[in-house]
């Protein structure tokens, strides 16, 4: 690189000495760490997500009450920022129409959302990744068949099918998890298929095939490490989608059943009171929004830092 004229030479003046660290190129791990620390979306999203996960794990310690404990004598206390004589620090977010502490229900609701998001994402991840990798690796007829299955799945409206199935076989937490998991694997399959196709075109796969590696070995040790960053990004997106879908199902009365503290259900139960006590729907709504926002920010951030050349 050419040195610009007029730049003071700080080296001799004892300003800045060139150390070994400046000459050695930083390791990939260092570069990754630097990119992570410079990515604001990832840091903010990760922070919110860790906070919500911590709240969910420590729910019994943080919540002052039992989420199912109904005390009609203390029903509909507004949150503390509300200009009302009833507002009290005993119930910082107030109480609901059955006199249950709203903060407690919100904290336990984080468990439900995260549980459903992670479980449904794992189920759909296993199905979608298997289909996508098989389609991408084998191509030909296998690819045609799997693409057909994906197209068929995409043409069926998710919310409607989920509602109908839950209505037919009865709703419970387990049913909601399985129905969502079995429905939202399409993006896993699509992304894994094209990622696998891209990796398969590289020479080291041909080399592995040439030296006689078994198919399972190629899939697990050659392809898997190279598609795993795509997998993580899709996983976050699908987790966010599962959480939103559970909330929508619960809101329509066909998801998690009362009195389970689910954020969607809390909004549904407070719907009739929203004109008089709007905070009953805004508090769980903001919680849902923050959780999904955090997961999406983490997903977008991970895509940026793991594949910086693919930005835009």
């Amino acid at each position, binding site marked *: 690189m050419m040195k610009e004229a007029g730049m003071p030479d700080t080296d001799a003046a004892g300003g800045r000495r060139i150390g070994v660290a400046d000459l050695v190129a930083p390791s990939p791990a260092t570069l990754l760490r630097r990119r992570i620390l410079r990515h604001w979306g990832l840091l903010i999203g990760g922070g919110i997500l860790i906070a919500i996960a911590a709240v969910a794990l420590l729910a019994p310690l943080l919540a002052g009450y039992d989420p199912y404990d109904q005390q009609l004598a203390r029903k509909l206390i507004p949150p503390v920022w509300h200009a009302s004589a009833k507002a009290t620090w005993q119930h910082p977010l107030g109480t609901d129409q059955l006199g249950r502490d709203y903060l407690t229900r919100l904290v336990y609701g984080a468990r439900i959302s995260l549980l459903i998001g992670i479980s449904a994402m794992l189920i759909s991840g296993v199905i979608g990744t298997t289909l996508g990798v098989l389609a991408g690796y084998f191509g030909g007829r296998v690819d045609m068949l799997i693409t057909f299955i994906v197209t068929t799945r995409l043409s*069926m409206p998710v919310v409607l099918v989920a509602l109908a199935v839950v209505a037919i076989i009865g709703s419970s937490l387990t049913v909601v998890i399985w129905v969502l998991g079995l429905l939202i694997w399409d993006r896993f399959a699509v992304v894994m298929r094209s990622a696998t196709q891209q990796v398969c075109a590289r020479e080291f796969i041909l080399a592995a095939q040439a030296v006689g590696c078994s198919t399972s070995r190629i899939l697990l040790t050659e392809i898997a490490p190279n598609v795993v960053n795509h997998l993580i990004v899709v996983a976050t997106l699908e987790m966010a989608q599962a959480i939103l879908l559970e909330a929508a199902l619960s809101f329509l009365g066909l998801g998690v059943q009362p009195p389970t503290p689910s954020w969607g259900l809390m*909004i549904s139960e407070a719907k009739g009171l929203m004109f008089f006590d709007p905070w009953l729907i805004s508090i769980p709504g903001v919680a849902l929004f923050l959780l999904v926002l955090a997961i999406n920010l983490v997903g977008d951030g991970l895509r940026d830092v793991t594949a910086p050349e693919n930005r835009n």
Partner: protein
Amino acid sequence: MLAYAVKRLGVALLVALTVSLITFSMIYMSGDPAIAIAGEGARAEDVEAIRKFYGFDRPIAVQYLDWLAGALKGDLGRSYTLRQPVAGVILARLPVTMILGASAIAFALVLAIPLGVVAAVRPNSMIDRFALALAVVGQAMPSFWFALTLILWLGVHWRLLPITGSGSWQNFVMPAVALGYYVTPAVMRLTRAGVLEVLSSDYIRTARAKGLRPMTVLFKHALRNAIIPVVALAAVQFGFMLGGSIVIETIFQINGLGYLAWESIQRKDLPTMQAIVLVLSVIYVGLTLAADLLNAFLDPRLRVA
């Protein structure tokens, strides 16, 4: 082009057929449909009578083919609770959902395309960042909660718009916004990416070198090509929206297909549920087919497949 079209049509028909098979098997998901209709604790002879009346005593393959043949002729069975043909009920409700879907997609395009274009013309500017923030926020908001918030502010607090019903055009403003905003991020990102790509191409450089005005280059030369994938995406998203309108229609009590679906789910009216899933899926298959053919017509490179 013809070979591609025929092949694509064949796939679409096969998908529709598979969907019909899955939809049909929904009846048997809960076990014995006759018991499901009769209700628990019904007498055995009542269950038998219902089994005969609805033809559940025939082999399943015969039932499916019979149902499929009916569906092809426009007979989607009889509703358990409304006591009238399902097809008529669906036809009566479909236009409302179509209007809702069309207004929602119109709202999304009107908001997303200009933002996407500006974001691409001035990358990393304030507007680009604002558009990105809008997309990130939009994707994280639960649609039903956004709808309730709209009702609370626009409907109750400021009294600008009616809260429920589907009588006048004002009734459709809030539902269209609540349904359409969810599509804006995708449309915006695709518009931005498309315009960015086209703007860096050679023919745009030529157009600029000829001394054409920047606006002419952008709208007459660049946007025309950048917008093609957006049209296809809009068609696909329209199909998604028809399926997603169940939440919005229930909240705003709009008497469309989504609300009908919710009613039939509440009453466990299986033939209506089945028919709605089938109709929406077939509409979606039709839309994606149209989008693919349009894309292939406009861009010959896509015809290989």
